[in-house]
């Protein structure tokens, strides 16, 4: 088939991107794009909130007021297990995204349940660490270092808690309402939130725990 025999309309579609409408004439984007983009903006603002907590921690991490420093109280074995929990939880959330993509109720529920259980394991480990420290007298009021530590890590833990509540809601909604578009938009936002929490945890276990132990 010679190029000249291709219909003009097909030709225009495949070979001449300049014929597409300019962005200013394209009209509003589909709802899924708008929702995903809006939630992405929210996540970035949340990351900026965490950046200010990180900055406070970095400034105060030496202000131990005669109390313990990071290398005295951080247990890397605990941190490694927490990291493994949150990473596999994030992976399971990705598996759930694939299951939602093919509208498979059974695998959606299984993978979301695993996501939640692993997230809960993370939270319990963190609670165990915090309560152990407080029991030894190293609560948040002990030094500026500990105040900023509890604020930063606790803020991440609060996000994970909120994420778990959201996760339970999503499982119930998939069960009760099926794979309606609005439920899938909510799930898109949830998966973004959950993956973003894992990114913030990467910064916490690296810059708080690992650097804290090595200095």
């Amino acid at each position, binding site marked *: 088939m010679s190029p000249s025999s291709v219909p*003009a*309309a*097909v030709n*225009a*579609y495949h070979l001449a991107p300049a*014929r*597409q*409408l300019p*962005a200013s004439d*394209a*009209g509003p*984007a*589909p709802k*899924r*794009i708008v*929702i*995903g*983009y809006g939630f*992405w*903006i929210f996540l*970035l*603002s949340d*990351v*900026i909130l965490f*950046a*200010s907590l*990180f*900055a*406070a921690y*970095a*400034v105060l991490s030496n202000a131990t007021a005669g109390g313990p420093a990071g290398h005295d109280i951080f247990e*890397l074995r605990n941190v*490694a297990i927490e*990291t493994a929990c949150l*990473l*596999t939880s*994030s*992976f399971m959330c*990705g598996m759930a*995204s*694939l299951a939602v*993509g*093919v509208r498979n109720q059974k695998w959606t529920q299984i993978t979301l349940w695993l996501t939640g259980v692993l997230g809960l394991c993370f939270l319990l480990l963190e609670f165990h660490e915090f309560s152990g420290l407080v029991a030894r007298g190293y609560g948040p009021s002990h030094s500026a270092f500990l105040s900023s530590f509890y604020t930063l890590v606790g803020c991440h833990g609060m996000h994970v808690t909120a994420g778990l509540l959201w996760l339970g809601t999503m499982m119930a909604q998939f069960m009760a309402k099926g794979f309606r578009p609005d439920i899938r938009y909510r799930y*898109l936002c949830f*998966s*973004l939130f959950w*993956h*973003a929490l*894992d*990114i913030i945890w*990467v*910064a916490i*276990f*690296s*810059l708080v725990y*690992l*650097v804290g*132990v*090595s*200095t």
Partner: protein
Amino acid sequence: MSAETVAVEPDPHVKDRAPGDEPETVGSISKGVRSYLLGLGLAVLLTAASFWTVLGHGIYRPGVPVAVLVLAIAQMGIHLIFFLHITTAPDNTNNVLALAFGTLIVSLVVFGTLWIMATMNHNMMPPSHLLQMHPP
């Protein structure tokens, strides 16, 4: 002539992507699983590497924090690409621009704070000198 060409005018948003959108996995779930597995494997490798820099003794001690920082940034990149599906493709321009602006603000907040507070610490009079400053 114009009627036919207008009819096939491509949807201008057909190439837009929301962050987190699965890249073309409709009908091939194994491809999606493989992509997530690759991301998981790379993240595990980088995590193990950063724990090793601290627990092992292969790295010059004062260089450990920088090594951990570099590994952390690499792992965040892995998460962004394989889990959040943020790419540099043209359909992702809006998402990447927002991410770039967020990164700019984050680095301004963190490095600005560290810089200002270090300068203030530097200019502060040591407590031993303060004690000697009684009025005549």
